[in-house]
């Protein structure tokens, strides 16, 4: 049992690390515009399915790492990710029962919230004027979410069975 627990922990960290690498990867500019916030997606997934408050701390830690990597205000990503994780965690049990489309809508709402938080912090710190391009990642994320969910579900079940 504990071994399985360790394994799923490992999976959480590995997947988020991979997400950070995806964020860092120097995509061409056109693609970078559509780049979803990978880490936020994964945090949302894990807080939905791991369903304990520990994920919130994980989210915070990786948020800080992202802050360092992006040279942003320390705690900016941390805060937005914790908020995201908290929102998901609060209603995780209910949400796991909902239909596919409803869940997708909820994911978009969470990610929108995440974007709003970050834009607000930017605005406070250096008068950043939000632009409509900031919302493009939201739609890519919505597109990617089902595939991500499917992939991670499969990995989890295969780990459980083995």
């Amino acid at each position, binding site marked *: 049992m504990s071994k399985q627990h360790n394994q799923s922990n490992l999976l959480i960290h590995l997947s988020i690390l991979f997400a950070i690498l995806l964020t860092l990867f120097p995509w061409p500019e056109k693609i970078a515009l559509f780049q979803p916030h990978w880490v936020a997606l994964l945090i949302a997934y894990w807080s939905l399915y791991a369903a304990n408050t520990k994920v919130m701390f994980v989210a915070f830690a990786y948020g*800080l790492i992202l802050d360092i990597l992006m*040279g942003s205000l320390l705690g900016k990503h941390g805060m937005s990710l914790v908020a995201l994780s908290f929102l998901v965690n609060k209603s995780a049990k209910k949400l796991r029962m909902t239909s596919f489309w409803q869940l997708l809508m909820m994911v978009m709402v969470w990610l929108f919230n995440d974007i709003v938080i970050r834009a607000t912090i930017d605005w406070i710190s250096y008068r950043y004027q939000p632009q409509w391009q900031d919302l493009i990642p939201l739609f890519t994320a919505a597109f990617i979410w089902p595939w991500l969910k499917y992939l991670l579900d499969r990995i989890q079940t295969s780990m459980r069975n083995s």
Partner: protein
Amino acid sequence: MVLMISDKNNQIAQPIRNVLSLAVVPLIKIIEWPQDIYQITQLAMSRQANLVQENNLLKEQLLDAELKVQQNVSLVAENQRLRTMLSATQNSPLATSVAFVSNISQTQNQQHVVIDQGRADGLFVGQAVLNLAGVIGQVDVLSNNFAHVILITDTTHAIPIEILRTGMRTIAYGNGEKIWLKEIPTSGDIRVGDVLVTSGFGNRFPRGLKLAEVESLAVSPDRTFKTALATPFAELDLLTEVFLIWPNQTKKSATKRSEKVTTIDTPVTKDTSLNPEETVNISEEAGHLTNPETQEKQDTDTESNEQTPQYQ
């Protein structure tokens, strides 16, 4: 809990940043690794003929550069003489160091580039960063082993400048793509093609570094100021290596840190960081030499062809 940390972002959070940046370095390395491998294999596979050709080209450039340096020596001496006659202050020497730009994408809405030197290499916040073509920006966020450099074209960046032709001073703001002078007095003398250099005010950027060229002029909406758009000399989206400047220091062994490629460049780069300064002074004192590009070391061939007649 989180808000507190995000609030105390300034000096207090620096230790946290340092510690965490150590954890982050492997991630950067992982991203850079395939690119390094690609470069190494490219080097290994490139034919010898190519290398010979490149070598010849570099030798030519070096010759060209050395020629200019020789001409410079006399100019510097002359300049120094004039300065002592005027009992003006001497230019303070600069120490430089080479850093490489990590090819890491930034989702931050600011124009940042990441360079591979940090606090451990003696960098400080607000340090001027240049490349061969001109000023790029300054160190904005400092971590232990890497640093974020904010570019001059960022909307939150401003830099005190001077118009080389007239000596008029103003402030240049970034506007996202180019440099924007929005506070030129309506009586100010500025033309398209004017070269902007740093004015050295504010003690961040040393005086006389090349920055941009005026591209177009306009009048501000309320007609109180003239405005101008200027294109930076440095191609800011194609940065590979940059030079960091320590003002008011003699040349220290900083350049030793530079790696393989730059062993060729370093003597050149030391000179470039010094020479624009000289140019300004010369052009102010003897008005016939107005183009700082004469001193620029790694000019393209066409440019150097244009410039050489002035010397002869």
